[in-house]
């Protein structure tokens, strides 16, 4: 048996012993996702047991080094773990922007001291992070951001407002883009880290068209941030932000690509019994695009692994994947008819189809709009002039 086969056998046995049956059920609502942090509570004992087992094994962040709370798995071992978890339908033990976004930035730009402290806190689910990027006047043109940190020697005093801060009301700390030099647009931003309990920080949830409030407005009113709480270099936070945006686009484009790659015609036929012939034709055309995109996703990941993908290719994946997902939910609504208009009924699990449909409209806005993605493709891949 190869080392990898041994690892697979061990992993399988470990999962069998440690992943409770309840944690092998599909995630049904936000309560089923454990986000960690100071304010976190477990939905049930199974969720707690599963999280703790993974935390102790380093499996909340399996590919991170052991000294930072991970399990130090090689890419091949991490893949085996993913496969084995997928095989039994195991839920992720911990979800967080710390794992997906800040962690990768710290691994790349952080000091040893920062990595030891922050990465361990993330891996152990002790601190829940949120991301402070967008501002009311700085959406697609993010680099125009105005939130300002005034240098007071050993600390900054931060004033301004962020918007679309995911789960800011539930987060413990924020990683935040703050202008520290008003004279340099790109080289005048610092990537700061601070506690959401610092005096002067307040949040206000935004009610969305889906009826949910995953995002907040976040206000900073004379917030004191110690001068050692930044990542990378002072005034070079844009480099960190760009790195993270690339990572985010890769994540969005890669996330549930298997779901996006599955056809929906057969599922909708089962649900509705009969399909209008013109709708059937549209579904068939959609399924062609979805199945083709699944091959694209596979090719993209294969190429990323060996460094063959164009560095701007995640922008294309994000563009194509999110536009496809919007179409998917338009068709689900069309096939469902009046039944999926129900907003609160038990039959629709509280209006799930309609709320999901509305949620997908943000796919092509968040993390860079489709239009920005097309700009990047024009400039960096097609090398069109003046783009």
């Amino acid at each position, binding site marked *: 048996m190869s080392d990898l086969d041994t690892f697979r056998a061990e992993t399988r046995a470990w999962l069998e012993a440690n992943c409770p049956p309840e944690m092998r059920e599909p995630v049904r609502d936000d309560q089923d996702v454990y986000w960690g942090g100071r304010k976190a509570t477990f939905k049930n004992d199974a969720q707690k047991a599963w999280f703790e087992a993974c935390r102790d094994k380093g499996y909340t962040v399996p590919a991170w080094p052991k000294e930072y709370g991970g399990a130090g798995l090689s890419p091949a071992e991490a893949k085996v773990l993913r496969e084995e978890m997928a095989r039994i339908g195991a839920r992720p033990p911990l979800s967080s922007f710390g794992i997906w976004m800040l962690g990768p930035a710290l691994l790349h730009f952080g000091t040893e001291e920062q990595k030891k402290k922050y990465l361990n806190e993330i891996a152990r689910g002790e601190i829940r992070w949120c991301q402070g990027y967008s501002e009311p006047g700085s959406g697609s043109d993010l680099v125009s951001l105005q939130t300002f940190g005034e240098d007071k020697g050993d600390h900054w005093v931060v004033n301004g407002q962020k918007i679309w801060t995911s789960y800011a009301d539930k987060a413990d700390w924020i990683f935040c883009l703050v202008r520290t030099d008003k004279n340099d647009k790109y080289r005048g931003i610092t990537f700061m880290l601070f506690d959401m309990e610092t005096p002067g920080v307040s949040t206000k949830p935004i009610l969305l068209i889906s009826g949910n409030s995953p995002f907040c407005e976040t206000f900073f009113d004379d917030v004191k941030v110690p001068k050692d709480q930044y990542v990378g270099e002072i005034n070079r936070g844009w480099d960190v932000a760009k790195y993270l945006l690339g990572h985010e686009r890769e994540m969005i484009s890669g996330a549930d690509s298997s779901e996006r790659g599955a056809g929906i015609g057969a599922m909708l036929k089962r649900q509705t019994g009969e399909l209008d012939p013109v709708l059937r034709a549209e579904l068939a055309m959609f399924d062609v695009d979805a199945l083709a995109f699944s091959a694209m996703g596979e090719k993209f990941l294969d190429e990323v692994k060996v460094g063959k993908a164009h560095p701007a290719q995640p922008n294309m994946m994000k563009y194509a994947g999110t536009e496809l997902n919007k179409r998917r939910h338009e068709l689900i609504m069309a096939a469902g008819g009046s039944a999926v208009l129900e907003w609160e009924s038990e039959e629709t699990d509280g209006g799930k189809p309609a709320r999901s449909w509305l949620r997908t409209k943000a796919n092509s806005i968040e993390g860079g709009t489709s239009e920005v993605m097309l700009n990047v493709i*024009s400039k960096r891949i097609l090398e069109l002039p003046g783009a």
Partner: protein
Amino acid sequence: MPLYHTDDQTMLSDTVGQFMAEEGAIAKQLRHWRDRDCKDGFGHALWKQFAEMGFTGILVGEDDGGLGMGHVEAGIVLEEIGRNLTPSPFLTSAVLAGTALQHGSDDLRGRWMPGLVSGESVFAVAIDEGAKHRPERIRTRAEKSGNGFRLSGRKDFVVYGGSADMIVVAARTSGADDDAEGITLFAVPKDVAGMSHDAVRLVDSSMATHTTFDNVELDGDAVIGEVDGGREILNKVLMAGRVGAAAEGVGVARGAMDMTVDYLKQRKQFGKLIGEFQALQHRAAHLYSEVEIARAVTIKAQQLLDAGSEKADLMASVAKAKVGKAAGLAVKEGVQMHGGIGMTDEYDIGLYMKRDRALAEFMGDVYYHAGRVAEMSGY
């Protein structure tokens, strides 16, 4: 298997790309033969060069003198054919007829394979009956007659049928028109009595025939595989043809797109390069995305076909449909973004549009294949 070319395949791609850009170029082949009203619609000399390069036998087994490679490699040749709009009987001979012959007896392969590998012979396939690809229905009939068969019926869109030394004909030997079973494939030599061609030049300057079989007497040894057992072979031929046509379509799409993106970087209006206008940038970027996806699924289908996977049939249809969409978009955007010059015969972009139209129909169009995807998915 990772979804990108191996080092060997990349090397092949470089070799083929260079060869086709030189020898298969639009001015040297497509325009040359078109402007001389060539009745074959392609150059035999280039076909011989294909043989010297090993392309003609790329899918032919090593025992039969070929290279014994797969559909990924054949697809590399086809993509470059597409990019250069090279008129060539490669798809009909080496991919379609070649795939059929692989299921033939030793005698049959011994009779036809050497000519294919050496570039002496050109083959065609006669499947379609009517203006649309509907291989589920086959009316052309072959009745038992002595030790052989008597073939009657009419086939359409027989690409390069008038130049073919042998035509693979799908005919019904039993059952009703719409039956899946009861099909037999025949290798019909060019000089048989009772076969007549009505040769037509198509929009892309390629040649095809309406071919009529009027009591054509065939020997029993013209049968490819088993009598009444031809559907399975036909399906393999169709799969190879669909994936092959998709690969050529990817080449057409990339050729048209590259040409158009170059044009956006050269043409000036309103004192600017037109590629500076966001209205055009976004359309070009969307096109890029579609063409990349079409290429990915085509390689996926090639790999599944080479692996003998049962998913190959579905992905072959997905690939043909997706390429139909993406290449169609590439040529339409290409002509529009070129503006007035795109409407002229002098400029090559219009040739891409014409080739795409013919290729879109060949082996089934986007609607046919999207319909198949729906059926195979269960709705």
